[in-house]
């Protein structure tokens, strides 16, 4: 061997540098080659700087509202309950709930303690002419005084007094509206009009005098009409309301509270459990709870607020809540039509997305299959036909899926048909191109073998070509099926059906991030399941074809 002819040598430094000097091209790259890497990196850096200014990234990031980001993210997994304590200029305090409170129509959570009292209120100059308007106003407020016994014979002033007496019962009694009661002031006695003229301008009303709100274990907010005491752990802050439209914190603000402008509202943060906004005319409490509220039953359902064991026992053996149907049917219906979560709608839309991807990909691969045979230059020996088909594939691919989606949304109306067609058109192009490439790369020996025994052209394709490419075709179709499940979500948002639009609408309100989270979880689950199915099928297909 060669090696045995050369004795082992040790090169000195001199020899090494001599060799390096004789063959510089081996030991030192040409300058442009050496600078290749740094040049590319410099170009990328320059481009990034250009993009920074082109998009104004710094400015946008500066102006971003990152506080909101935290809130929105928290909304994914939690919900807020928002009681508002309204304080009128005369010191009367009422509690108001947001219209669709997760606690139902008449919330009375155990983390709020209310102390009630009666208060003589002036009905105000604009309402002085008619105390009925006071009754109306009172009826519109949350603590609606209702008096079932309010008769038509009573004078209006008496009615007002009677209402206060019966303040706390029958909040939903319509008869509190004595003004609207048939014939109340007009047909009863003419004295009513006279009394109205001289009606006392002050009425007694049931108001809240003190409220204690507990946010979590060691935060409390004590609200009285003139003083709000916020306690976070060991620290505590007193905020004086008024006189006038002024809010004054007593002492130094701790770092968990802030007041942007002197005399204006004070916002206290209690971490995840919530925050409180104190203003001269009221206190807004935002108490955050972990979890998805009313996920199974909404507040209108008779099953709402019951424990799982209660619901199960009701469904299994309870009295019929609705005489027309069984409890099971009622419960199932209530779940499906849950107003907050819209389970049925979400599931239907998700199914639409799945169907869009499935049917679109299936049709695309079925159509791409014969066309690819025409496009492959080793199968169809007709240059014009090859080129025509390939350009057709390119056309389908290059008109974006977005354009197809918008076009078919116009043609078929919004819905999954548009999505199916968009995926079908785009993927016929993509799959056709890939299939044609796979056909052009086949091993020619099998085909020659089949042809040499005098087989018909169709038989040559069937036995010489198809066994080679079919696993590849199927595998690629499966891959696109899975990837289309994802893209079907996006084109849905432009109206092509499926869950995309629902997601987009839920996000646009900026209120329903928990619904977004729910849909994202469903989508992720579907994508993972299909990913695994498609991977398993693909590895079986490809495994069978490999030696």
């Amino acid at each position: 061997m060669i090696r045995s002819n050369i004795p082992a040598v040790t090169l000195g430094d001199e020899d090494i540098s001599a060799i390096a000097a004789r063959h510089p091209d081996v030991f030192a790259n040409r300058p442009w080659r050496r600078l290749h890497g740094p040049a590319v990196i410099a170009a990328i850096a320059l481009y990034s700087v250009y993009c920074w200014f082109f998009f104004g990234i710094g400015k946008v990031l500066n102006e971003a509202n990152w506080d909101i980001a935290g809130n929105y993210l928290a909304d994914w997994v939690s919900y807020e309950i928002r009681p508002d304590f309204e304080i009128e200029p005369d010191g009367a305090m009422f509690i108001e709930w947001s219209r669709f409170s997760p606690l139902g129509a008449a919330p009375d959570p155990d983390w709020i303690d209310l102390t009630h009292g009666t208060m003589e209120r002036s009905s105000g100059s604009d309402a002085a002419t008619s105390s009925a308007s006071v009754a109306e106003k009172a009826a519109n407020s949350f603590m609606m005084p209702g008096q079932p016994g309010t008769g038509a014979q009573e004078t209006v002033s008496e009615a007002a007094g009677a209402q206060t007496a019966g303040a706390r019962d029958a909040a939903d009694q319509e008869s509190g509206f004595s003004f609207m009661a048939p014939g109340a002031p007009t047909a009863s006695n003419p004295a009513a009009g006279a009394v109205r003229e001289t009606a006392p301008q002050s009425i007694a009303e049931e108001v809240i005098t003190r409220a204690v709100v507990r946010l979590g274990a060691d935060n409390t907010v004590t609200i009285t009409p003139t003083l709000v005491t916020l306690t976070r752990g060991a620290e505590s802050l007193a905020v004086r309301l008024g006189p006038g439209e002024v809010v004054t914190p007593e002492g130094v603000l701790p770092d968990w509270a802030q007041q942007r402008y002197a005399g204006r509202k004070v916002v206290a943060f209690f971490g995840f459990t919530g925050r409180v906004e104190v203003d001269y005319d009221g206190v807004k409490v935002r108490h955050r709870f972990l979890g998805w509220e009313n996920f199974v039953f909404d507040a209108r359902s008779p099953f709402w607020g019951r424990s799982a064991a209660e619901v199960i026992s009701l469904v299994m053996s309870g009295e019929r809540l609705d005489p027309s149907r069984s409890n099971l049917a009622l419960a199932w219906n209530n779940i499906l039509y849950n107003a907050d979560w819209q389970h049925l709608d979400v599931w239907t839309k998700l199914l639409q997305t799945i169907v869009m991807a499935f049917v679109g990909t299936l049709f695309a691969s079925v159509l791409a299959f014969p066309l690819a045979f025409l496009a492959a230059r080793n199968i169809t020996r007709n240059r014009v036909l090859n080129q025509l088909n390939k350009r057709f594939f390119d056309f389908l691919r290059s008109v974006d899926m977005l354009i197809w989606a918008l076009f078919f949304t116009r043609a078929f109306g919004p819905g999954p048909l548009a999505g199916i067609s968009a995926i079908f058109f785009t993927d016929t192009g993509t799959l056709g191109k890939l299939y044609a490439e796979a056909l052009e790369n086949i091993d020619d020996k099998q085909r020659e073998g089949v042809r040499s025994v005098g087989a018909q052209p169709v038989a040559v394709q069937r036995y010489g070509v198809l066994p080679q490419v079919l696993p590849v075709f199927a595998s690629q179709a499966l891959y696109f099926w899975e990837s289309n499940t994802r893209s079907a979500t996006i084109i849905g948002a432009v109206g092509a059906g499926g869950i995309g639009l629902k997601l987009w609408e839920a996000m646009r309100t900026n209120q329903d991030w928990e619904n977004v989270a729910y849909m994202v979880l469903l989508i992720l689950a579907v994508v993972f399941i299909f990913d695994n199915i498609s991977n398993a099928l693909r590895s079986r297909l490809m495994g069978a074809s490999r030696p």
Partner: protein
Amino acid sequence: MSLASVNSAAQSGGGPRLSPEGALVERHWQELTLRRRIYTVGGIVALLVVLSASLWFANESNAGKFFDRLPYFFDFFIDLAPREPMEIWRALFDLPSPYYDGSFQYDYPAGRVYLTETFYVPEYFYKMLETLNIAILSTLIGFTFGFLLCFVAARNLVTNRWIRGSVRRLMEFLRAFPEIVIAGFFVAILTIGPIPAIIAVSIHTVGSLGKMFFEVVENADMRPDEGLRAVGASWIERVWFGMVPQVLPNFTSYALLRLEINVRASTIIGAVGGGGIGEVLRLSISRGHEAKTLAIILLLFLTIVAVDQFSAWLRKRLVGEQAFEFGR
């Protein structure tokens, strides 16, 4: 089965009589064929049932029914016919239109983006540039992070199963998370504009490029790595000098392929609030501005063809005729 019945079965086939062993082989073969046929037919029937159920469902839940809408199929094109073909060019290059009546439909020059006093970039070219920049920037970001992550996910470089597994799960998660939600979330925090689109497309790109990259790394030649390990190189040195030189052409090639996909993705994201050409396309279609819509479609088509051709040419230079088969 008794011998008699085997014989009768063999005789029923005709031809020369079979010995009992021969008949057994024949019967076995027939059973196999039958079973295969049943599987095939059963599979096709199941597929057809699922397909027709799907089609029925799609048709039922669609706003317009397929056969009702079919006669109106080409209405879109009829609606899109501009008043004269030259209108498309005017819309494309922001030239004044003779039909200008003060409405948005023909106010082509209004969108001009002036770079100097007299030199302007037509609106749609500028928007197209924006979309292209979104795609390129997010491919770069995706490339960077995918590059950093992929070596940690490769079986031949990292033996710790937990590190590898968690990086892979992370990439799967980034890939599967709906882009539209990321875009929508950042639209809510930032404003409507290209940056939410960049973030959304980048995050998706990190996941998908990372997956392709670590598959390349796992198929790489391990001999340079062995050599480096033999002389005591650290993990980073092994990756940098043993792996990167041989995988970089493939990486670049995959990144170019991803760039093609990202151009389309950023167009779509644009249509749902991400700015760029997608947004103007959606607006102009919904407002029924024919010439503008056609100009945008034309521009988008040409750009996508150009990007595809450029990327195919560059990929061929980088890795030769190596085919990229999805899903292999």
